[in-house]
């Protein structure tokens, strides 16, 4: 459904050029939950902003292709992009409160999305549709919630409202950027269950962005691991955890509490993207690195499993 190929995005700042994405490729298939996972600053959000063409003025997509069901998004007109955003692709963000209008009733905010993307005859039909979407996100009292202001709802309910707004335009795909990071565990588990149900019952396609491997294990069908602006590995979720191939993925899993008795930190630190390492961006921290890794960036190779590494076969 969504295919990203060799995406290169850079920011032009006073300090120099931030090479945020360097050849990012992945594909989200219809009806699946695809996870994009990686540590802070690896480029997850920049990938989605590039996809929806929402980069700030300092940011630019240098090269690459992004296609939605075959249509090139990088070549689409700005008015077409407005249709795509919220229409075909809806987005929800980490902090629900900052994305909601504090002085507008929740129902009216959802109604705006409905008006924008649905051809309904009158206000009554819109109101019915608003309650319907609030029901779809399992809001306990949809009619009551529609009359509430955002601050009157708890964090978990606010995130449901965000999801309801996203679903109001009947999107084909939902991009969820850290949808549960701000939530408590028991509330997180409610939202994860909701996303799972929406996928199963409504066939929703989801691109889930997260730094939390637990959430990935819990929810995703397939997953791509990002490191410093590159995709290092793509795999069906079971295989990623049972048989990680890329040295970075292996390092990440070994550093996770719960995996083993002693934690093995990944040595070194994430590179500065103003001056990223030559060749493979992981080479300064990699236990397998050879000369070739310093000189040449490895390509993402493979089929159902893909790995970008000179020393490992997919």
């Amino acid at each position, binding site marked *: 459904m969504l295919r990203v190929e060799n995406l290169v995005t850079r920011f032009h700042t006073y300090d120099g050029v931030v090479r945020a994405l360097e050849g990012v490729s992945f594909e989200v298939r219809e009806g699946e939950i695809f996870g994009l996972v990686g540590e802070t600053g690896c480029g997850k959000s920049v990938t989605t902003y590039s996809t929806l063409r929402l980069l700030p003025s300092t940011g630019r997509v240098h090269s690459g292709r992004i296609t939605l069901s075959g249509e090139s998004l990088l070549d689409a007109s700005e008015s077409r992009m407005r249709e795509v955003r919220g229409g075909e692709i809806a987005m929800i963000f980490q902090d629900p409160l900052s994305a909601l209008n504090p002085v507008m009733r929740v129902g009216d905010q959802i109604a705006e999305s409905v008006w924008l993307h649905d051809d309904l005859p009158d206000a009554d039909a819109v109101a019915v549709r608003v309650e319907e979407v609030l029901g779809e996100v399992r809001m306990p009292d949809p009619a009551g919630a529609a009359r509430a202001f955002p601050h009157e709802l*708890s964090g978990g309910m606010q995130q449901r409202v965000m999801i309801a707004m996203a679903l109001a335009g009947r999107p084909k795909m939902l991009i969820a950027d850290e949808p549960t990071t701000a939530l*408590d565990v*028991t509330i997180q588990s409610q939202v994860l269950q909701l996303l799972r149900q929406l996928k199963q019952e409504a066939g929703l396609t989801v691109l889930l962005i997260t730094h939390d491997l637990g959430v990935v294990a819990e929810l995703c069908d397939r997953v791509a691991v990002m490191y410093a602006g590159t995709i290092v590995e793509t795999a069906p979720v079971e295989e990623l955890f049972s048989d990680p191939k890329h040295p970075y993925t292996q390092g990440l899993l070994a*550093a996770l*509490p719960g995996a083993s008795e002693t934690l*093995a*930190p990944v040595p070194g630190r*994430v590179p500065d993207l103003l001056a990223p390492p030559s060749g493979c961006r992981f080479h300064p921290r990699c236990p397998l690195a050879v000369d070739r890794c310093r000189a040449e960036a490895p390509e993402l190779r493979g089929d159902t499993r893909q790995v970008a590494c000179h020393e490992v076969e997919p």
Partner: protein
Amino acid sequence: MILRTHGLAKHFPIRDFLGRVEGQVRALDGVTLTLPEGKTLGIVGESGCGKTTLARTLLGLEAPTAGSVELGPALADGLARDRLEELRLGDLRRLRRRIGVVFQDPLGALNPRMLVKDLVTEPLVIHGQTRGLRDRARELLELVGLNPDHLYRFPHQFSGGQRQRIVIARALALEPQLLVLDEPTSALDVSVQAQILNLLQQLQRRLGLSFLFISHDLAVVKHMCDRVAVMYLGRVVEEADAAQLFANPRHPYSQALVSATPELDPARRQARIVLEGDVPSPAAPPSGCHFHPRCPIAVDNCAVEYPELREGDGCAVACHLV
């Protein structure tokens, strides 16, 4: 035992716009728990359940509304009293030297205009020491695995993980017996978190420290702690050995919490206990057992009577039905 609390309560007044008290936030509402010496006690619970308030009260930064903090011999040594709330100012200052603290907010913890040398020795200066500060600073940096030659740098010249090491070095400056760690790795990435958790374990072994380890991340708590207390709305609902709590949680809330924690093995995705509703506000906690509106097994009495924390075979549970 390094420390024990008995029915510890801390209520914050809620004032209306004229400054009149119109209610109370019951941040701590009768917390009873025991911190074993040389071990790690984990405190888990969701946002607002009172974890930070508990830490602040144990540090003497908040005066408890009710209840008592009993100090073990290691902390009470040489003090006139062994109850925190009965200590006079001089003794309170001496006690403060024995309890180090790493607070939640990673950005606010370090003054950006101070040199690392001054940051890590600040507690010594506050307690009146003026000599040998540079040598002590080098020692402390070495202790937490930082390069002692970096004394004259500013915090922004360090990565997030290194800054957390500076915070830990400062907490150790006065050679405390007990370290209170409030979400010490919540702001860090997994690969860096692993470094800090390993460092803390090494320090505990080397210095024989006791830890009070606050976190909402159950995987981290399971990895770090010997015992765990689960809090819900200002109360401890269960206290048990970590291994037992995670393998066999007794209280329905602990069960839901353990069950809600994402499993790392996708093959073991299981039916989760998904709790209905949200955590109520501590300004208006539900009657009886605070957990009853969300509890899957609640009976009529749960809404009426508060279940006391009852002890039995190495654990304590506050539930009418367990």
